[in-house]
């Protein structure tokens, strides 16, 4: 077969990678083989540029049951036989072209990763990034993505309970759509995605296979460009109704008939190719598939198209031979198509036939051994001046301007209420949502147990833009802080590494630094990395996105009835934990205040992970002693915004006007020094003493009540603050 550059470009393979393949095979690949290798060696499936860095991730811990990357998602032990599995995955490129379907199928894909493990999905979260909403094109993407997430999640009956969204010009034209799913179940129902047992059949269940999504994995591994619209056929179309049936059928199979099957695997990126090959690789077996047996929804599909189709809502079941009929009958009862398409073999080869004709026969080890490119990063020298900039040289905020500045921040597109989004998501179905969206983390109770799980996602790309190592550590810290604020102990994390083109030295450096920062924070905060995904090549014509390793943290709360929200009770005292009130100008680095007032970011963010860990433990200890009525982490917008959010949630004001302003009013009110919480308590004395005993700064700010929000020189009506915060997003999205 003549292989020219155009053919290689279609499978996103370089000439040298092709040479490597020739060496491994000792012959030229067939067309189908080349397509399969191209897909599995793509960045999206093969993690060519990111895998060499995964070794830095801490992957073991008290709660961890799986090895990173070994299964479709990571699993943690919640005690008493309960298990949680979770993972986050990106669907950025499809969403850039077709926001509704791109986001919808992102949700569908992550759900399949979870129920492939036999666990019932109990919560969805979404970490989203867009360009500024002042731009009509970004608003269109924003609305489409939110509608797509809702359209899929609402239909399937899994609550969408959390996530976050941030706007920045670097995401214009290349939005980020990272979907996370948490599943819960009994440990004995946990399934593996392995093709074990030579001679066992391979059963494809769910949707018919069509021409949609072909080369989706390779498309996800190149930069978006002016011509990307031509890739629209690479975007799949979701059918959440079918997925609902598939989910019920698979969960029931795991719960009631686990002994019938050896493995269950989802079909995601690179479709049947990656699904079957990964399952065989896990079991150390081979697979033989006859594409003529694969039910199609389009005529005249080639074997190449069948093997690379990314049609949604399909699963691969590996039943034990003797239970094949029962498994087929099980899916028939759920009104789902199920067909035997091949068998497990002992030759460690992936053999693809079209009837009698063999169209591919290639060792599994070749397919799962993509080249590795340790990133060769170079720190961009432009960072020196940016980081060294003296933020104290900027004029401070005038006290007379403090009130209007708070209102402006509350109404900003990055801080204002996310209600416009989450009221379009069913966040209550399944009757488990104890802490609803709108706070720091969502809490889902586990029925027939007192336990609950808390989940949150976070990442502030602005901090990473200034210093990727610190920024990534801050993202881990903030996601953990959000979980801790509900009274749950962080157990593990998942990540979605969204970066630009790793072949660019500055992006490679960002990737490397971010992974080091993430790993260090995960180690110190005892939240190991149990699953994840990398999405590189996030480049729009205007340049790379901000480095954005989205972090999803899941925590355990032993008694879900004690879960905290951010809303204090009237009469409670609000206490700042983790730092003194006064802050210096350096804490404005990368902050929302800096961005809003200067339309640029500068300075050097910082975090003391030791302090972070101690403060988080303090909050958990205080919660365990039942001393807290509410807790909220300090992040975007700093102290004044966090205090306002608590008061708005409670519908009560506060008088914290005695709060001493330090040398810098702007930094004290709006600086974003990490490792800080606001907690509310009916027993301030005990909290202050306990904090002092642990040598952690604690300052009582004021007592909750009244209809005004006073903090330092800020003095606004609570109703005005609530209005600005509540309507901020609605206002900008009211425009066409």
């Amino acid at each position: 077969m003549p292989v020219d550059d155009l053919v290689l470009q279609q499978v996103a393979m370089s000439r040298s990678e092709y040479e490597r393949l020739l060496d491994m095979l000792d012959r030229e690949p067939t067309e189908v083989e080349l397509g399969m290798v191209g897909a599995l060696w793509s960045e999206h499936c093969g993690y060519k540029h990111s895998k060499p860095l995964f070794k830095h991730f801490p992957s073991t811990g008290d709660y961890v049951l799986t090895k990173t990357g070994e299964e479709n998602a990571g699993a943690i032990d919640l005690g008493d036989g309960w298990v949680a599995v979770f993972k986050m995955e990106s669907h950025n490129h499809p969403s850039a072209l077709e926001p509704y379907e791109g986001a919808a199928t992102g949700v569908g894909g992550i759900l399949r990763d979870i129920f492939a493990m036999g666990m019932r999905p109990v919560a969805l979260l979404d970490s989203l990034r867009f360009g500024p909403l002042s731009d009509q094109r970004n608003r269109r993407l924003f609305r489409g993505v939110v509608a797509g997430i809702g359209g899929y999640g609402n239909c399937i009956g899994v609550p969408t309970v959390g996530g976050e969204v941030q706007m920045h010009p670097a995401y214009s034209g290349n939005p980020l759509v990272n979907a996370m799913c948490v599943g819960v179940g009994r440990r004995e129902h946990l399934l593996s995605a392995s093709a074990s047992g030579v001679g066992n059949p391979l059963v494809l269940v769910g949707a018919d296979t069509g021409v949609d999504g072909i080369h989706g994995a390779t498309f996800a591994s190149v930069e978006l460009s002016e011509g990307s619209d031509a890739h629209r056929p690479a975007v799949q179309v979701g059918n959440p109704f079918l997925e609902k049936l598939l989910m019920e059928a698979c969960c029931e199979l795991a719960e009631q008939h686990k002994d019938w099957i050896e493995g269950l695997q989802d079909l995601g990126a690179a479709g049947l190719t990656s699904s079957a090959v990964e399952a065989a690789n896990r079991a150390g077996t081979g697979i033989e598939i006859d594409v003529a047996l694969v039910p199609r929804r389009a005529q005249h599909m080639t074997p190449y198209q069948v093997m690379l189709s990314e049609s949604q809502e399909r699963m691969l079941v590996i039943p034990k031979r003797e239970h094949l009929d029962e498994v087929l009958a099980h899916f028939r009862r759920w009104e789902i198509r199920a067909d035997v398409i091949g068998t497990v073999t002992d030759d460690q080869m992936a053999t693809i036939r079209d009837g009698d004709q063999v169209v591919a026969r290639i060792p599994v080890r070749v397919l799962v051994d993509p080249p590795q490119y340790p990133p060769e990063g170079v720190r961009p020298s432009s960072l020196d001046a940016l980081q060294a900039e003296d933020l104290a040289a900027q004029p401070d905020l005038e006290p007379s301007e403090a009130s209007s500045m708070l209102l402006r921040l509350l109404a900003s597109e990055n801080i204002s209420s996310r209600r416009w989004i989450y009221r379009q998501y069913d966040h209550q179905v399944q009757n488990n949502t104890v802490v609803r969206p709108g706070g720091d983390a969502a809490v889902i109770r586990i029925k027939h147990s007192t336990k609950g799980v808390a989940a949150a996602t976070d990442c502030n790309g602005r901090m990473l833009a200034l210093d990727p190592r610190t920024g990534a550590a801050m993202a881990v810290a903030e996601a953990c802080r959000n979980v801790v604020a509900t009274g749950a102990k962080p157990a593990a994390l998942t990540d979605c590494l969204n970066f630009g083109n790793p072949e660019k030295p500055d992006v490679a450096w960002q990737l490397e630094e971010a992974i080091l920062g993430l790993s260090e924070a995960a180690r110190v905060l005892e939240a190991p990395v149990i699953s994840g995904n990398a999405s590189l090549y996030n480049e729009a014509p205007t340049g790379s996105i901000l480095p954005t390793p989205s972090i999803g943290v899941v925590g355990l709360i032993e008694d879900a009835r004690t879960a905290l929200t951010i809303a204090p009770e009237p009469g409670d005292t609000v206490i700042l934990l983790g730092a003194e009130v006064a802050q210096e100008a350096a804490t404005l680095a990368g902050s929302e205040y800096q961005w809003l007032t200067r339309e640029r970011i500068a300075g050097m963010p910082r975090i003391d992970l030791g302090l972070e860990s101690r403060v988080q433990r303090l909050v958990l200890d205080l919660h365990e002693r039942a001393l807290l009525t509410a807790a909220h982490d300090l992040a975007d917008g700093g102290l004044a915004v966090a205090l306002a959010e608590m008061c708005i949630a409670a519908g009560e004001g506060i008088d914290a006007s005695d709060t001493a302003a330090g040398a810098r009013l702007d930094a004290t009110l709006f600086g974003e020094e990490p490792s800080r919480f606001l907690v509310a308590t009916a027993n301030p004395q005990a909290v202050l003493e306990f904090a002092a005993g642990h040598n952690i700064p604690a300052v009582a700010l004021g007592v909750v009540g009244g209809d005004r929000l006073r903090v330092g020189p800020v003095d606004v009506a609570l109703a005005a603050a609530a209005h600005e915060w509540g309507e901020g997003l609605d206002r900008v999205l009211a425009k066409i």
Partner: protein
Amino acid sequence: MRATVVVFPGTWSDNDCVWALGQCGIEARKVWHTDEVTFDRDELVVLPGGFSYGDYLRTGAIARFSPVMEAVARHAEAGGLVIGICNGFQILCESGLLPGVLMRNESLQFRCQDAYLVPVSQASPFTAHLEVGRGYLMPVSHGEGRYVADESTIAMLDDTDRVAFRYAEADGTVTADANPNGSMNNIAGILNERGNVLGMMPHPERACEPLLGNEDGNAIWLSVLEAVGAKV
């Protein structure tokens, strides 16, 4: 009293309904839409929420043809109790057991939020023991919940005391602001002529425990129990 929760392909509040009924001590079984079923005379039949058949074609339009719906219609005909919640309400309207239709929300968006309902009619076992005029807190979660009917039907519902609930403020006052979907006359739930069939968009089964925020929804199940004089 026994309860049966009907499961169509795409139903998702079946388990929530079983759970909520259990909170009130009512044992409930689930039946699949193709199961051969017969209902006892005093059985409560629940058509739960969800997206039966993916809402394809039109909400509830395909589910009305499910085999189980013949048994449901016979049960209703014989005076048995039937409640349709959310998608169940849509199915009851599609199958002609209740008048009117549920259209897309006025906002053209899905809405998941708390809503207060004020009971209007007490002429049904579902509402007989609710306090008229008081606001009951129950969540709504739908994209197509705007109740629409022709003027004569709306007038007939009012004249014959067949409006079960209207959307209201917390204190029970009916206002336009309290209407989450643009339903005509703030209608949140309606009854059939005999009062044995109730369709409502809000989810009483989600308001069943203090842990989830409130338990106002249980009032409906408790009213049924009291009305039929059943012991649990």
